[in-house]
């Protein structure tokens, strides 16, 4: 006997609203379907109304956890459009913040995975240790969450000797705690029993469905934008791409823990080899007519921004392809033949950042229940026709 049940949009397992419609037979999932759009904010449209320098702060607010990845991706793209190059010290500081963000994001994810599995003690410990990273980022950039350290042409703040020493000292504590979690957390029988063998994604299926980030790296595929298409200083930074072979949630935990250890090594290298020099160059206000695709390895996978400029100081079009959006088809595949009890873990294993991925809107006719997806041209036509019939009142006042 099959019945369809919605998980979400409001559900304690999900930190953000998304609707997964699952068809169950007993406790086994037969089919899963995803509906997006509950967190849609119109960022791409708003980006067309703001200048490049204002858009830096707008793209930062696409997500809270991976805010630096969006702003760096955007800044890189615009620097290419304006044909300027950030100086080396600026790129080093940008990469340093990127790696610190990766550390904080993976520690956050470890805690969330523990919480989804009912292992609250692990959650509390990892988040307590994450506070060390948050304090470093606050001292470095002035804020704990939206660092705003990028500007078009480099970075805004420099790092002085005192801060450098402090970060190097805190690294020791972080490395010790991460090794402890590796040694103990993945040996705790109740935790491992929940995550081993769950959410299998074979190598071929993963590549066919275009999964990105640790989700695909846990299936043995060596795919990392930092190695395939180096940006910032990754071309000269020595590091390894971390993979695992088990294709399940345990593999993804292992990949993320290994990436944490790699990030610590990278941060140490960056701090020890920080070159002297200016931290930014002056950027022009306008960009010539051109289009650019900028890629970045966010903690969740490959982040892509497509920016088109038309000679003015505002972009013509900004399109954001966040990594979680690429992982949704793979998630639906992983959910098949799983248990209900595994849904939160499978979904949490791709490290969902649903607000990053709000890019499609589905139209559902309230009376007939019919659904369709419109293209941009159709939506534009629809809204033009609508406002021809219902003109906007010209006397409307800005209420504030």
């Amino acid at each position, binding site marked *: 006997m099959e019945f369809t049940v919605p998980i979400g949009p409001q*559900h*304690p397992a999900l930190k953000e609203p998304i609707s997964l419609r699952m068809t169950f037979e007993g406790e086994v999932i037969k089919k899963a379907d995803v509906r997006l759009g509950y967190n849609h904010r119109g960022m791409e449209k708003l980006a067309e109304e703001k200048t490049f320098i204002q858009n830096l702060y707008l793209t930062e607010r696409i997500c809270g956890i991976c805010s630096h990845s969006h702003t760096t991706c955007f800044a890189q793209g615009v620097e290419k459009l304006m044909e300027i190059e950030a100086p080396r010290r600026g790129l080093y500081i940008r990469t340093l913040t990127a790696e610190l963000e990766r550390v904080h994001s993976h520690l956050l994810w470890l805690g969330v995975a523990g919480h989804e599995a*009912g292992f*609250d003690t692990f959650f509390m410990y990892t988040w307590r240790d994450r506070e060390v990273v948050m304090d470093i980022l606050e001292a470095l950039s002035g804020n704990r969450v939206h660092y705003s350290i990028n500007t078009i042409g480099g970075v805004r703040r420099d790092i002085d000797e005192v801060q450098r020493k402090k970060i190097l000292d805190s690294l020791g504590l972080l490395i010790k705690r991460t090794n402890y979690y590796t040694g103990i957390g993945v040996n705790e029988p*109740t*935790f491992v029993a929940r995550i081993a063998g769950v959410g299998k994604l074979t190598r071929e299926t993963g590549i066919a469905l275009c999964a990105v980030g640790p989700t695909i790296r846990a299936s043995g595929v060596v795919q990392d934008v930092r190695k395939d298409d180096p940006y910032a200083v990754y071309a000269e930074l020595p590091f390894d791409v971390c993979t695992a072979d088990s294709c399940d949630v345990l593999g993804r935990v292992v990949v993320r823990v290994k990436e944490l250890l790699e990030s610590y090594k990278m941060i140490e290298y960056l701090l020890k080899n920080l070159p002297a020099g200016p931290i930014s160059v002056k950027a022009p206000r306008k960009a010539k007519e051109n289009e650019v695709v900028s890629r970045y390895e966010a903690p969740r996978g490959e982040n892509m921004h497509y920016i088109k400029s038309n000679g003015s100081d505002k972009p013509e079009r900004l399109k954001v392809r966040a990594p979680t959006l690429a992982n949704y088809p793979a998630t639906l595949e992983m959910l098949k033949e799983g248990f209900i009890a595994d849904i939160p873990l499978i979904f949490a294993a791709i490290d969902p950042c649903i607000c990053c991925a709000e890019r499609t809107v589905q139209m559902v006719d309230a009376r007939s229940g019919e659904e369709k997806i419109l293209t941009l041209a159709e939506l534009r036509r629809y809204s033009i026709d609508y406002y021809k019939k219902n003109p906007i009142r010209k006397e409307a006042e800005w209420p504030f």
Partner: protein
Amino acid sequence: MAVLKTLLYLFIYPGFLFLLVYSTFCEWVDRKLYARFQNRIGPLHTGRSGILQPIADFIKLLAKEDIVPDAADKGMFRALPIFGLAIVMTAIMYLPLWHYDVSRIGFNSFPGDLIVVLYLLSLPTLVFFLAGWHSTNFFSTIGAARVLTMLFGYEVPLFLAVLSPAILAGSWRLAEIAQFYQQHPLLLLPNIIGFAVALICLQAKLERTPFDIPHAETEIVGGIFTEYSGKKLAMFRLMADIELVVGSGLIAAVFLGGFPGGLFGGFVYFIIKTLAVIFLLSLMRAVTGRIRVDQVVSFAWRYLAPLSVLQLLIVILIKGLFL
């Protein structure tokens, strides 16, 4: 006089009033310990060091809106919390807390009352199942099914583990068992395995981590308690607290030697021994994560049941050879 004593027994100590106060205190101890294990503070500002927090939670829930879903069976939906509360409150009567004049057989102490307590402690599981079933919500139904599935796992090891010291003591009467172990304290040691098994099974009965599957928050929203709100939810939570006290009282009576010393001595011993058991239960809750319901059943039948049979064997050997 006897009537007055009975009324005192039923409503003040160890009955209604004592249970209400002590179970909220035990919930506070549990929450504070759980928080300290995780390097947090726990409840802090309500009352001195947060001690009034469980009472505050209870009063807050009483004040909330009480919704009964349209499709639910209204009579059962409303009656079940009260049934559950009544059942666990009755179970404390048989624990050897106050006067146990072993020679007298009264309404609260008779041969076989150990079995009555164990039976009364199994009934809450049935109450939870019915509560989930009658909510007619998909998540509650899954929670109800999981409650019964877990029952198949832990019930048999629990019974075997608790009955082994009774066999050693030669009686099915809690008062006599406690008295036996007070006279021969060394005989508590062969029951260690049974003690460990009974602790794990009590954790499963109380539906706490690692066995809190029926109301797993991150998976099935509220599980059996999804549709309950307001007064009914307050009563279910109070029932869970009282079950904690009664369960640890049972384990303390059977495995840790009872509560000697009449009225005041018994009171002090009860507090100390139940708090010791609650410490171990909190530790178990903080150390592990939640496991799946099929893993509970396989774990119970592969490890707990053989261990409890082993415990029984040890007891039979000792009784046969030495006593």
